[in-house]
């Protein structure tokens, strides 16, 4: 009995295996044939000029961002690994309201575009800098560093007020946002960057390497996400729609402030783009240059990765409004 049972079982198993193998093999061959025949045709059909342009812009934004992101993560990992815990609290005024403008002005020292400033601001907070001061630094660094100001003066030859306007409006926005955070900010909105437990593995060269690796990968994913969004808008929104709005002064300021968010032009290049937007008032172009380095899709994605999604959305929308207001005021005063 037992014996026959095992033989029958074995037979049944063999038959089942055979059936599966035949069915599975046939399915596999069918799939392979269809893919190999249709694949190239489909791929060619899908690789239309807009798709090719999307890929180019997408890769371009990512490639352009990598060196700056790496610079930012190197600085932030170095702060994390080599700078003693209390040094920033000693350097910055204890009073938060005073620390904000100091940190905002300190943005001059980080020569890079906005990708670099997010990880640095994160590591400053990790090192005990008041969030308000770190946020002021985050906003001002990409807008007021010497590289960007020189680029602006080259893009607007003979218009030093444009450079001054950009400096004043950006700094004012950064400081205003810092003060707003002191007054209204809530710690729970901010998912504070990982507080690393002080152990020998996190300081020194080893901590530097592992912090760098972690920060770069973390921010890199968000950079790619932002690049994809920027490329999509770049391809989906033709710039000729801009001509429709050049008539009204108010609409054009609003429009360029929105455009700065969706185009994600890096802060070293946005002056040239702004200069090419002839037909817009100087104030509107100023708004483009003030909003761009502070709020754009790539930056929102990076901030969401570092500080949490709920923070990024709140912070970016308020920053947008403040930046717009400050550039309108400065534009009305200077330009």
């Amino acid at each position: 009995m037992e014996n026959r049972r095992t033989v029958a079982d074995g037979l049944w198993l063999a038959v089942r295996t055979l059936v599966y193998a035949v069915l599975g093999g046939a399915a596999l061959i069918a799939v392979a044939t269809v893919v190999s025949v249709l694949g190239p045709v489909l791929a060619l059909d899908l690789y239309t000029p807009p798709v090719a342009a999307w890929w180019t812009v997408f890769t371009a934004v990512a490639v352009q961002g990598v060196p700056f992101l790496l610079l930012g993560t190197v600085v932030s990992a170095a702060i994390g690994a080599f700078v003693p815990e209390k040094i920033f609290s000693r350097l910055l005024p204890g009073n938060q309201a005073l620390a904000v403008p100091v940190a905002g002005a300190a943005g001059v020292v980080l020569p890079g575009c906005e990708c670099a400033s997010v990880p640095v601001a994160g590591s400053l907070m990790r090192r005990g800098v008041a969030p308000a001061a770190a946020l002021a630094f985050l906003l001002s660094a990409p807008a007021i560093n010497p590289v960007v100001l020189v680029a602006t003066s080259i893009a607007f030859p003979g218009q030093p007020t444009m450079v001054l306007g950009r400096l004043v409006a950006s700094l004012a926005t950064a400081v205003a946002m810092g003060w707003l955070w002191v007054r209204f900010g809530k710690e729970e909105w901010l998912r504070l960057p990982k507080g690393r437990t002080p152990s020998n593995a996190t300081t020194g060269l080893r901590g530097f390497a592992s912090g760098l690796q972690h920060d770069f990968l973390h921010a890199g994913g968000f950079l790619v996400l932002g690049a994809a969004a920027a490329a999509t808008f770049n391809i989906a929104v033709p710039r000729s729609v801009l001509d429709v709005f050049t008539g009204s002064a108010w609409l054009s300021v609003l429009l360029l402030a929105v455009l700065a968010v969706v185009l994600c032009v890096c802060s070293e290049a946005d002056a040239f783009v702004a200069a090419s937007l002839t037909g817009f008032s100087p104030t509107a172009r100023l708004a483009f240059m003030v909003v761009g380095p502070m709020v754009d899709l790539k930056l929102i994605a990076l901030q969401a990765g570092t500080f949490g999604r709920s923070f990024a959305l709140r912070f970016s929308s308020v920053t947008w409004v403040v930046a717009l207001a400050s550039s309108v005021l400065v534009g009305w005063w200077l330009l």
Partner: protein
Amino acid sequence: MRRYGSAILLLLTGAAILRISLLSELYLRYVQSGLRPYLIVSGTVLVLLGAAAGVARWRGRRSDDHDHDDHDHDDHDHDDHDHDDHDHHGEHGHAHPGPRLAWLLALPAVALLLFPPPALGSYSAGREAAQRAAQGVGTFPALPSGDPVRLTLAEFSSRAIYDSGRSLKGRTVRMTGFVTQDDDGTWYLTRLYVTCCAADATTSKIEIRGAASSDRPPTDAWVTVTGTWHPQGELGSDAAWPPVLDAGSVVRVTQPSDPYEKR
């Protein structure tokens, strides 16, 4: 696989950056030439970092007891979760959105390694009106000597439209760009300008007329055109736009390694 994930990603990204900047000039399709040293440095740093991470992981696996890196890593992840109540993610430490999202880096990296996207061409040029450099009518410095004189499309355009000294008059010029065309059959020599990266590309184009313009090359073909300026419209006015060139010769060329013009 998961252990080596970050090492693989760093190596992939670094290799992709080095492939386009150190081993070829493909980076010029995406960014401007000044970025090359920074790209090479970042590519090298990323490769080294990836190798270091891989070695650290491999050693860590061989001596699991003293696996500092792993403990360290787990520590962060737990810390993260403490701060991160409003953002609930999966049950395990590694379901953290950052590291998982980092796999997105593989997308541009693999694209650059296997099939680098082409330079922007007629599609992008056609999507927006050609940009006019913002400047007033005035005199320009004298053109360099040479017959024909090599110019960028930008130099030609701004001299054609804004130069009250009319320095282009009587000179034979030579320019390289790609072909775009209107529905009515007029064709243009076109070039894109990139300041920082391809996302900020703007267009400049010159209408080609004259004897050699009848055999129009296909759209997107790269050509070198030699000819003389055809004055049109009042200086600085809309009628002067786009500038016109009477072509003497049109020669097909290969795409230059730097497909964009710099400002």
